[in-house]
Structure formats: structure tokens, C-alpha cells
């Protein structure tokens, strides 16, 4: 044992890191196999609140979906603007290990 080992001991152990990473990975993938994450209804509600500050919309004009495509999840948000039906605002957020653009 060298003097360096003595200092290293104050840093987090790699096994601790492994455990922390796994807790996140496992939680995320369990959601996948059971279908959609349980936060979706709340997410939808909150989005609706934000959007309605700027536009008049109804609940059923917002759809939020999570889809798996290959190795990543895509969170798809679809908002149909009412009245003039001017446009549909679409956003897709993807997640995985790498930046979204490279991911899908």
C-alpha cells in the first residue's frame, strides 16, 4: 500500500458509482417494460397549463406519448392549436446515452 492509496480512499469507490448508475438505469428500464412512465398524466397537465398561458387549447388537443425506437425513448408532444387550426406544434425529446441528434 502506497501513500497515494491512502489519499485515494477519500474518493468515491468505483463500486459505489456502479451502484448509483445502476439504480438509475434499472429504474428507467423497468418503466420501459411496463409501458409508459407514470409521470405522463402529470406532465400532460402541467404542459397544458403552460401552453394555455399563450394559446387557447383543450386537454384533448395535447397528446403526449413515449415511444421506443431502437435503443432510445422518444417523448413526443403534439399540440393542436385551436380556432384557426394554424399549425400543429410538435416536439420530440429523445433520450439515451448520447445527444439526441445522434441517438435516433
Amino acid at each position: 500500500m502506497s501513500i497515494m492509496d491512502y489519499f485515494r480512499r477519500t474518493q468515491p469507490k468505483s463500486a459505489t458509482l456502479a451502484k448509483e448508475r445502476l439504480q438509475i438505469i434499472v429504474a428507467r428500464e423497468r418503466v420501459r417494460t411496463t409501458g409508459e412512465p407514470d409521470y405522463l398524466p402529470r406532465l400532460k397537465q402541467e404542459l397544458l397549463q403552460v401552453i394555455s398561458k399563450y394559446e387557447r387549447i383543450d386537454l384533448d388537443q395535447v397528446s403526449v406519448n413515449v415511444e421506443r425506437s431502437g435503443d432510445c425513448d422518444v417523448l413526443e408532444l403534439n399540440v393542436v392549436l385551436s380556432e384557426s387550426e394554424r399549425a400543429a406544434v410538435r416536439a420530440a425529446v429523445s433520450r439515451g446515452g448520447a445527444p439526441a441528434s445522434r441517438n435516433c
Partner: protein
Amino acid sequence: MSKVVVVTSGKGGVGKTTTTANLASGIAALGYKTIAIDFDVGLRNLDLVMGCERRVVYDLVNAIRGEATLRQAVIKDKRIETLYVLPASQTRDKDALTLDGVGRILDELRAAGFEYIFCDSPAGIEWGAQMAMYFADEAIVVTNPEVSSVRDSDRVLGLLDAKTRRAELGEEAIKTHLLLTRYAPARVAKGEMLAYQDVLELLGIPLLGVIPESTAVLQASNAGTPVVLDPTSDAAQAYLDVVQRFLGEERPHRFLESAKKGFFSRIFGGQAATA
């Protein structure tokens, strides 16, 4: 009564084939009529680990296709009276196994009085692995104390819950067991390797056993003799404990702590070792 047991893992190279060979040998040595089936179509490993590769004539796919009878395809072990092996085919045909065919083979084996039917799964979570687990009554999930292996085991648990006969028929769920292999207590003590408690907590299934990393395993596979047949090594003893637990005996877990500590680690490594 017969039990179909799948040995599965997701990640490759974690010790499924080693585990299948040792559990099947250990259980058969107690007098139970036991067969180990190699589902790793295209690779064929189990016969090597069990030392019967030179006697392979027909295989699982031949039996499914009716090119050989099951009796012709099954190899009787030379050392243990009640032990049999059904080797994998080396065909590259991905569709060689069918659920129907596998189901028929298992029915025949049950009818022939096999009490334990071990299915050695290929790596991965694709069709081959799903085929190996489909008819299982119990599953041994082989895991190494390492991030990708634990993650894959968790995926496999999801599949066992959803893509199996018991799941589809809404029957009682497959009984799952965690088998942690290649465990190095000294490295755990240094904080370099996940502790068995962590893996247990992450996966949340009962612990069947912990097999230490051991050179005896490699030597055994070199010789084609499952390590349990020479119970002097720690890995052999750990596997023999697993056999007893699998049959319902209570056995304390062993080989969880590193053996004798050196002079320096006793002085400096105290808190790390007990953490």
C-alpha cells in the same frame, strides 16, 4: 413431477453454461434423473464443459425435426448414472428452434421421467434466449457483480415476467433465483466491485448463491469435468451449497468475505473490509 429450470442472464460469458453443468451434475449425483439441454444453437458449449463432446451424434434440432429420436440425441453421462445431456446444434439456421418443437421435446422428457430439466440459455434477450425460458417453471438468473450484467439481468427478469408460457397463460409466475458468480470478495472489500448486497437490492429476487471467482472453474472446463465433481475448491463447495438450497435445504452463504487478510490490509484496510 418434473421441473423445467432455465439458466439465463442476458449478458454473455457470465457463467450460465458453467452453472448449468454444475447444478445438473450436483443434482443428478443425488440420484435425481436430470438432463441439461444446450439451447445455444450455433455455438454448442455445454457438451464441452461436461466433457461429452466426442459422443455427440445428434442434437436438439435433429430431435425437433424428427431426424433422430430423442433417445438417439440424448447423451448419457459416463460418471453419473442419472445425468443426461442434450447438445445444441451447430446449424446457422436461426429458425431451427420452434416453440412447438421445444414444447414437444420437453413433454417427451417429462414422460420419460426426468425430474430436473435444465435449459442452458444463449446470451442475449432475443429469440433464442426467449425460447430457452419460455416453458420454464423456475429461472436461475446468473449475474456478475458488474454494471452491464446487472442491467441485463433486470431485463431478463422483465422477459420472464412477460414472454413466457406461465405469463401468457396467467399461471403462477416463474420462480426466480439470483446466482451471483465470479465474485471476488477482496475486490469488494476494496470498493472495486459491487457487493452482493447491492446486487440483491437492485434486482430484488431471492439469492440462491454466490460463486467465487476461482481458477478451479477454468481448470475444470479445460478437463471437461464440472467443478462440483472435485469438491476441494471453493467454487465447487459454493455450487454444492447452491444445489442443496435449490432442493430446499437451508445453507448459510459462504465465501462472501475475502480469506486471510494480509498484514497491511489488516492495519490500513480495516474499515473498507467491514463496510
